């Protein structure tokens, strides 16, 4: 299973040059860029852990790429995502977020149906990976 997440989610994984180009686009718009990572990809897990601090006043993407590579080296089996935040008045939200790393093996999600009162049915989504403790997920074998 290939996790579809964020901007460009249905494109093939971006190469480093493409990542640099997207970050340059964000910086040109004055969006500070930050790097976040997680190994718990439930849809409701919106806030991932931050790697380093958001980077302000950059002109070129090299610094962000260095940060991404540090994060990749430390968490080779985590999802790593780049966030670009638009702070302009009236928007003040994430302008762009895309994956820059995914684990080699993504086992996917379990859909659970729960019978409620009056035959109502509720759904729950659980990642197979989260059956293991945090830090040991998405490890092959």
């Amino acid at each position: 299973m290939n996790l579809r997440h964020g901007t460009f989610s249905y494109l093939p994984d971006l190469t480093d040059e493409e990542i640099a180009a997207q970050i340059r686009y964000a910086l040109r718009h004055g969006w500070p860029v930050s790097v976040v990572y997680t190994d718990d990809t439930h849809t409701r897990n919106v806030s991932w852990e931050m790697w380093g601090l958001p980077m302000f006043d950059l002109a070129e993407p090299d610094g962000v790429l260095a940060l991404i590579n540090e994060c990749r080296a430390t968490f080779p089996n985590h999802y790593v995502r780049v966030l670009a935040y638009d702070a302009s008045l009236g928007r003040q939200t994430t302008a762009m977020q895309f994956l820059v790393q995914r684990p080699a093996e993504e086992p996917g999600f379990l859909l659970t149906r729960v019978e409620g009162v009056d035959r109502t049915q509720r759904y729950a989504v659980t990642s197979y990976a989260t059956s293991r403790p945090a830090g040991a997920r998405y490890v092959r074998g």
Partner: protein
Amino acid sequence: MTVMHTPKGFGVPRPSAAGPEPEQAPAEPVILGDDAELDLSADEAAARVEQTLAALDVELVGLGPVKRRVREIASLLQVDRARRQFGLTSSRPTLHMSFTGGPGTGKTTVALRMAAILHALGYIRAPRVHTVTRDDLVGQFIGHTAPKTKEAIARAAGGVLFIDEAYYLFRPENERDYGQEVIEILLTEMENERGDLVVIFAGYPDRMATFFSANPGLSSRVPHHIAFEDYSYPELLQIAELMVASENFRFDEPAQEAFSEYLSRRMGQPRFSNARSVRNAIERSRLRQARRLVELRRPLRKEDLVTLTADDIYGSSVFRDSTDDSR
């Protein structure tokens, strides 16, 4: 950049049905034959470099050795470009520099021009100079320095990192000073082959000499040491003329004499900082001119507003008392 086929109206842009478009011609140019000839001056970058060098010659008085060195570096990069067109690969020239010279000798100005030249020759991505001092690099507690330094490097990426008064990074009297950490991080970054960051260390000559001798690793990675000499008396006068003219002022005859007298006195005093002192002197005579004009209490003509008179210069404390050090 390939242009995607965009459907009219609402829809998702898709590559056209005729299959993937042929790849655009790659950036790699045609490699010239062994007996081909290449005219260096025909290079379109050369024209831009020549413009910048000409501007350097016009705007900066004196500094002969510096200008020659800047020209040499520009030629080196030009030849390197030419070699690549013949398919001759060699490692990227290292262009980290150190600018040593007294205060007000134009180190920052030359750094700005250098960035423009390096950009014109495609060595760096933007003609940008990010100026930092010790405060911007060294942290206040353990673990604070590395992120701060990396942030400065990230901001300078693709341009020039200008470290002003770089010798402050090294404090031999305090071995737990975080400056050493900055130097180590800078070293790894300067070693980085694919990064196109150029680091310029600037400072006063004597203290830079101790700084480099205490950090041999750093010294060996900085191939270009450029020394900025103090300006001579006629050069300073010329600088003053240029400054006054660029601010739309002018000295009248007696004022010119007064200023050259001022300069010869001021040069003998301590804390004389070349062009910066000249600028400050002019700023202060503007101040005295303004006061004089206000006290005239009569309608002013353009002539009055433009002219700096001898009185405006003789008002300086330099003339008041030869033992008085205040500027």
